């Protein structure tokens, strides 16, 4: 331990953030966290982005973490400030996003008395954090902050919460930031057992119809290069989940894209006709597997994950591989090459089969009768983005537009597709985009949002406008809670209960202008390209209100609980399919 410096608890929180390399934090001040904001006024290298709602701050921290690979930080006051973070905490939990949430708590002597703005936030969030700390002694603050960052970023990443009583923030003490953490019960794996690697390599070489099934864990582990090396050296075809999107270049011929409920028929078939499924950093989510007993029925499973509890949780793993992906994938690629002494294994017939399916069952939709289709808008955004210099990072809300974004947006670099997968949090897109922009000011950040989603967090446009974090938001405005409407149409006999939002209220372009952003209304296919270009060149945040066909449904679709091979395809009678 180095020399100690006399300071207040509030200053110590900021010194801890600086020690951890945090350059941006997102939050909103309030009574119980005021001393820490006062410390910001005394000076810190941490940039604070002032959100308009704590949920927004939380999603910004998530977007920042996903785009940068660093730990995000969100700060709120006690009580409602803290409970407003809960949705973002749950979201980070479900998608394994490393975020340190810092909340103020009422004074120690008031804890447990139902004091003003007192909520037991460590109790409320217990099932959705990796760990949490309620700090009531300022001497514990440095080690707690150190532990919080360590737990958030090591092992399977995820959210942690540090709840700091107001008097602790105000207390003076001798501060030194510890070099080590003291967490005897926290021992995530740091290496992979060589026997597991050998068995996996042997199975890969022996397989006739292998398929890699890659998830968000690859991105969290920054293991894209190692994954690509394995794909290339062993000629392994891959499917990539929604959370994994961008972990493998989408122009790569062996990348067969997303399986699952709205994934392609060929990706679902690839998984389900395989004789070996190599699951990497993924968790056999029900949105991918459909009916588990009918999922990849003939396949042996290699399940490789940093989290031992995921291996075998849903599907038995014939070859469990537990450990860090970056290290393990590199070892696996080397081992596959060593086992396949005669060169790369030949999966020729299988690859030809996959290619046939890809040609036979592309994503498609019917362009019809002068009505603007949402997929057309997303394709136009994709094409416009491809023409830009520099990286483009995409974020989405949750629903139909998210699934179309998954289907039509093309990502070449890791961490360029940021979405709420596990929790399915509507309203994620705009704040996540702001967080991503804060992490990557050099990149163009485009949020593909739905009109329902947008209205849940659109107040953060003020944050984007005033903090100099320009983003482009394309509201795929079909005037409905589109995915719910789709289910009502398909499974609830067209009883459209409480899903109609209307195209026109609010007027999104005017709303954008009111928030200091540029607003554009797009009603026809012809207006699309010009408006998109104008939005991209606006020099400030922009909102595209893209008024689309309210009846368009997202296909293909595997109905909930059905076998993933039983895909409902887009109906073809509506007109010319593209």
């Amino acid at each position: 331990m180095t020399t100690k410096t006399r300071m207040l608890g509030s200053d110590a929180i900021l010194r801890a953030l600086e020690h951890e390399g945090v350059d941006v934090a997102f939050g909103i001040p309030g009574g119980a966290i005021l001393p820490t904001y006062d410390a910001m006024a005394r000076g810190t290298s941490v940039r604070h982005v002032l959100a308009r709602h704590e949920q927004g701050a939380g999603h910004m921290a998530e977007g920042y973490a996903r785009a940068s690979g660093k730990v995000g930080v969100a700060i709120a006051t006690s009580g409602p400030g803290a409970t407003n973070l809960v949705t973002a905490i749950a979201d980070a939990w479900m998608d394994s996003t490393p975020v340190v949430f810092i909340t103020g708590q009422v004074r120690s002597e008031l804890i447990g008395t139902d004091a003003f703005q007192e909520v037991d936030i460590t109790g409320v969030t217990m099932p959705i954090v990796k760990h949490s700390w309620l700090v009531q002694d300022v001497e514990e603050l440095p080690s707690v902050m150190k532990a919080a960052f360590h737990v958030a970023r090591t092992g399977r990443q995820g959210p942690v919460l540090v709840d700091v009583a107001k008097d602790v923030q105000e207390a003076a003490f001798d501060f030194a930031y510890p070099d080590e953490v003291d967490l005897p019960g926290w021992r995530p794996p740091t290496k992979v057992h060589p026997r597991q690697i050998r068995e996996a390599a042997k199975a890969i070489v022996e397989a006739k119809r292998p398929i890699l099934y890659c998830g968000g864990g690859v991105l969290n582990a920054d293991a894209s290069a190692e994954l690509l090396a394995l794909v290339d050296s062993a000629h392994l075809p891959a499917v990539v989940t929604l959370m994994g999107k961008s972990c493998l270049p989408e122009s790569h011929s062996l990348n067969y894209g997303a399986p699952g409920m709205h994934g392609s028929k060929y990706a679902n078939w690839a998984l389900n006709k395989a004789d070996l499924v190599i699951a990497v950093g993924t968790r056999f989510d029900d949105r991918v597997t459909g009916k588990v007993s009918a999922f990849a029925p003939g396949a042996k499973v290699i399940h490789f994950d940093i989290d031992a509890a995921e291996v075998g949780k849903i599907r038995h793993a014939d070859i469990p591989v537990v450990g860090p992906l970056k290290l393990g994938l590199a070892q696996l690629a080397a081992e596959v090459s060593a086992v396949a002494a005669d060169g790369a294994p030949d999966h020729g017939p299988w690859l030809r089969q996959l290619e046939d399916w890809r040609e036979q069952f592309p994503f498609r939709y019917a362009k019809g009768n002068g009505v603007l289709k949402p997929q057309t808008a997303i394709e136009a955004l994709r094409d416009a983005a491809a023409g830009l210099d520099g990286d483009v990072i995409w974020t989405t809300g949750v629903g139909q537009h998210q699934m179309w974004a998954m289907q039509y947006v093309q990502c070449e670099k890791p961490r360029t597709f940021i979405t709420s997968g596990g929790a399915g949090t509507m309203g994620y897109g705009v704040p996540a985009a702001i967080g991503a922009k804060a992490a990557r000011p050099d990149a163009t950040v485009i949020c593909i949002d739905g009109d329902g989603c947008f209205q849940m967090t659109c107040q953060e446009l003020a944050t984007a406008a005033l903090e100099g974090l320009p983003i482009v938001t394309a509201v795929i405005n079909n005037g409905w809670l589109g995915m719910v409407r789709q289910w009502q149409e398909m499974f609830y006999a067209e009883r459209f209960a409480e899903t109609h939002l209307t195209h026109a209220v609010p007027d999104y372009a005017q709303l954008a202008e009111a928030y200091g952003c540029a607003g554009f209304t797009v009603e026809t296919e012809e207006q699309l390209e010009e408006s998109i270009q104008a939005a991209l060149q606006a020099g400030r945040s922009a909102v595209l209100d893209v008024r689309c066909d309210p009846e368009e449904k997202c296909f293909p679709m595997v109905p909930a609980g059905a076998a993933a091979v039983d895909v409902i395809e887009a109906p073809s009678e509506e007109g010319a399919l593209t």
Partner: protein
Amino acid sequence: MSTHTISVRLENKPGALARVSQLFSRRGYNIQSLAVGPTEDDDISRLTLRVDCSEHSLEQIEKQMHKLVNVLRVTELRPDESLERELALITVAVAPDRRAELVSLAQVSGAHVADIGRDAITFEVVGRPDQVEAFEELVRPYGVRELVRTGRVGLRRPSRTAT
């Protein structure tokens, strides 16, 4: 489904027990009994949990518990490799004329009289869970007024533990 005994070494920190018990309710595992207390180390508590679950669930429980920051070690206590004990206090209604009969019954069962009232006796019984159960069954016909059991505590037998 079968019943398993799990022993958990846990850091003695605020909220640590709540984290373990919420994990069980959150993941839908049913706890039959839970006993917690200090160990040879002041900073560490030991939990003994009885759970009714399948082998697959047991594996999941152990893995999920390992991820809790305060959990130091999780071990299943297999019956042939471990010692298990339980304490029960049982208040049995008894008329004065049948007291002697009940007390001698307790004596042969290894239970002790903890308190005697005008129309009831409280027995304490310590032993293997099946012994505690047997005594409970034995006195039940007299009328059990109140009963409390600690839930079992357990340790691995040093005689069966490879070092």
